[in-house]
């Protein structure tokens, strides 16, 4: 049987230039019709330091980056030592024999990348030698990479005429050497080209694109890993008349600027991570009480406080839900894949416009740094909501009904005060008990407008379901598939709409004997919220700063199922 996927990891020192080769490799395979998912981790230091990137290539849509490595490509000793443990028992280590020696007894192939590369006449072809060898080890036809080379360096006016043939020559040199080694990790099935166009991007890019489609026209943010790339993307692309993008002096400035913008009619957004999110606490409370549509992206990293800026975690759920003092419970949408990052962002704007209040988009480090191919969205099929705007004349009670009411926009009739204190119909401060009751009811009843969230479910009869959230969706799904293949009786449920939950899903979950929630935090944050809702939920937690490995998760689920 031919292989359906393989995993390769490239590891070395930042600045060694192998990252772009690795990215090219993934992109070439995607072009050829394979599915791919990459994941990179960067050190906290800026130059140098241990860096690695992993690519999983498959003939079918994949959920995770893969647990074990088929090929490990290393560029220095430290990288070899750090990563060799994750190599599959039949895996091969491909290494730069000018940089390190591998004395261990294992399937290994050392090549002088640099020397072979230079022999092609292109001084920078070392990485092409490496890719040629790699492709051969995984039985990937070279023409996929050749096509990539032609596209990448084909512009003769920019790159001259010699680079393409030299790089192709380098590929072949790599291939020859690999063939000599006679190692192989099994032949890969040919890809079936999808009938849909594919785009290859990471989670943060998907969020930015989603926001543009949803109509964002005001973005103010403050740099913070792993959310910075959204700000930087917006600075470049959110241009043109009526669009405003700015780097704030702090997250407090960002959230309060958003309040002013959302009030004035803008579709306003910011992106941040834990520490910045905590600083937004007071402002988020105001968005809720003054009923101002806003979208706040929290790309979670390890917490608490400054925490683990370059690692992944799902530990901001509780503060996303109840970010501030007082009775506040914000809508929370947490995408689980790069594709969902795009759709979740549009949903977040739609919700914000619909219920007129802040919506939290809870992404995470692992999604932000993961590149994945997704079907190019068909924009004509995506609904974009716009808030109900007051268009009447004369005086108007903006906060009058026990539900959402049309919102006046400055410049037109309907003046009122958006007030962070409790208020009456026109927004003047009041302390009357019945007003606080009415207005509190109003604010919470608006949440009932957000019941359109979709969800997945399968196999609900067994009484036990696996319900991961956010970025743990991928590992959760692969674990579920594996358990089913092994004959376990277990169900699957998933939604990115964490609050409010889709009502049908809620009742489905209440009917289950046991809901197992894989999540990357200590407290079991999502499951504790589910238990408060009356669901018998139990978490399977991990808090290493890394995503679940599917194998580990399968074991942890089995333990729960068997006990």
């Amino acid at each position, binding site marked *: 049987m031919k292989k359906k996927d393989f995993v390769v990891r490239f590891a070395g020192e930042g600045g060694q230039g192998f990252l772009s080769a690795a990215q090219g490799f993934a992109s070439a395979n995607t*072009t050829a019709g394979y599915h791919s998912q990459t994941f990179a981790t960067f050190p906290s230091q800026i130059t140098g330091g241990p860096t690695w990137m992993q690519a999983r290539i498959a003939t079918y849509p994949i959920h995770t980056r893969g647990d074990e490595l088929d090929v490990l490509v290393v560029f220095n000793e430290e990288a070899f030592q750090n990563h060799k443990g994750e190599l599959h028992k039949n895996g091969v280590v491909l290494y730069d024999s000018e940089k390190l020696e591998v004395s261990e007894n294992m399937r290994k192939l050392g090549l002088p990348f640099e020397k072979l590369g230079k022999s092609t006449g292109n001084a920078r072809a070392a990485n092409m030698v490496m890719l040629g060898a790699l492709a051969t080890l995984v039985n990937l036809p070279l023409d996929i990479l050749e096509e990539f080379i032609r596209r990448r360096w084909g512009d003769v006016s920019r790159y001259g005429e010699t680079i393409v043939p030299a790089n192709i020559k380098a590929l072949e040199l790599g291939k020859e050497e690999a063939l000599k080694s006679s190692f192989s990790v099994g032949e890969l099935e040919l890809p079936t080209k999808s009938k849909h166009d*594919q*785009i*290859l*991007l990471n989670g943060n*890019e998907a969020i930015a*694109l989603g926001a*543009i*489609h949803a109509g964002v026209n*005001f973005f*103010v943010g403050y740099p913070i890993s792993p959310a910075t790339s959204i700000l930087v993307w917006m600075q470049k*692309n*959110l*241009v*043109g*008349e*009526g*669009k*405003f*993008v700015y780097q704030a*002096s*702090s997250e407090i*400035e960002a959230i*309060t*600027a958003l*309040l*002013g*913008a*959302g*009030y*004035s*009619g*803008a579709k*306003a957004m910011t992106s941040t991570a834990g520490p910045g999110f905590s600083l937004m606490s*007071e402002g988020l409370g*105001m968005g809720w009480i*003054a009923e101002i549509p806003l979208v706040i992206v929290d790309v979670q990293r390890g917490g608490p406080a400054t925490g683990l800026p370059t690692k992944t975690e799902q530990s901001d759920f509780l503060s996303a839900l109840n970010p501030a003092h007082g009775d506040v419970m914000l809508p929370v949408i947490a995408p689980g894949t790069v594709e969902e990052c795009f759709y979740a962002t549009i949903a977040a704007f739609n919700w914000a416009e619909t219920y007129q209040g802040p919506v939290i988009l809870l992404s995470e480090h692992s999604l932000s740094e993961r590149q994945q*191919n997704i079907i*190019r969205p068909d924009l004509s099929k995506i609904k974009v909501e716009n808030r109900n705007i007051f268009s009447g004349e004369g*005086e108007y009670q903006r906060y009058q009904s026990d539900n959402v009411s049309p919102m006046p926009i*400055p*410049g*037109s*009739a*309907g*003046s009122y*005060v*958006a*007030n*962070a*204190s409790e208020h*009456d119909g*026109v*927004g*003047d*401060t*009041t*302390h*009357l008990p019945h*007003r606080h009751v009415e207005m509190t009811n109003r604010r919470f009843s608006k949440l009932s407008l957000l019941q359109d969230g979709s969800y997945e479910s399968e196999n609900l009869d067994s009484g036990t379901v696996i319900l991961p959230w956010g970025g743990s969706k991928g590992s959760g799904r692969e674990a579920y598939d594996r358990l089913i293949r092994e004959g376990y009786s277990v169900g699957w449920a998933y939604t990115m709409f964490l609050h409010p939950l889709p009502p049908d899903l809620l009742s489905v979950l209440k009917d289950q004997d046991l809901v197992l929630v894989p999540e990357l935090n200590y407290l079991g944050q999502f499951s504790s919220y589910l238990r408060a809702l009356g669901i018998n939920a139990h978490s399977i937690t991990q808090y290493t700063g890394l995503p679940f490995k599917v194998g580990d998760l399968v074991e942890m689920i089995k333990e729960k199922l068997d006990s």
Partner: protein
Amino acid sequence: MSKKNPEYDFKWCPGCGDFGVRRALEQSLNKRIVDLEEPIENTVVVAGIGCSGNLVHLLEGVQPYGIHGLHGRSLPISFGVKMSRPELNVVVVAGDGDFLSIGMEHIGPQAQRNLNVCVVVMDNAVYGLTKGQSSPTSDLGMITSSTPYGKIETGLNPLRLYLTLGVSFIASAMSSKIKDLADLIYRGMEHPGFAIVHVQSPCTVYNDTYEVLKGNAKKGIAPIAWNIPDDHDVTNWQAGVNLLDNGGIPIGLLYSSKERVTLDDKIQSEKLPVPDMEKLFNTYQV
């Protein structure tokens, strides 16, 4: 508050300086309606938290839009309003604690940007609404409920701070001179850039400074407020700085420069074409 609102339960104390500021703001807004034929709905008043900020609910007559938000955050909120809708007239009303203590971090950035809003600071050198604690502009040694043994910090000179931070229109006023104040507020709103009208607005309960400001010949108290001379060159930054060396509280327009363009005029990226989704997708096409 478009008509007598029975639910609204805040009133300023008798004699509070903020009454005058309200009147002056009303006058300047009315003048806009008449002179500029601008509807009142084009104005957004962003208020801080304090006795002062309650002004937004106490305006009489036709009602502008308003935001009554968080303590210290009126300036960044106004930034959001203005930059999403540059055609609006945006006025900030704030207290000295609100603007210069908890909100202090926001002045510098807006001054550097030259955000085109007009701020009216009601300075009573005390926290009124929380009943009499010291504020950044309280004098050294002042006894308040939070400084029972005398204030330890030197009092901040807000006008010097504004000059240093690069505020492009700086006026100093007294709440009791309503016409002058209305005129300064009007000009601050008209000024293309970041304008601050800093008003001495005494708190009759916790820090009654009427007498100190205006002096009392009978009691031999010399006034600490003095009028900026007519020949003061308001476009000369250094002249403004030098004026402050005279001490006391200068009243009038201290500085006004239109040299720097406003933030809304600076945004170059707005002149680029609006992004097209399909083109953006193309850059990610495999």
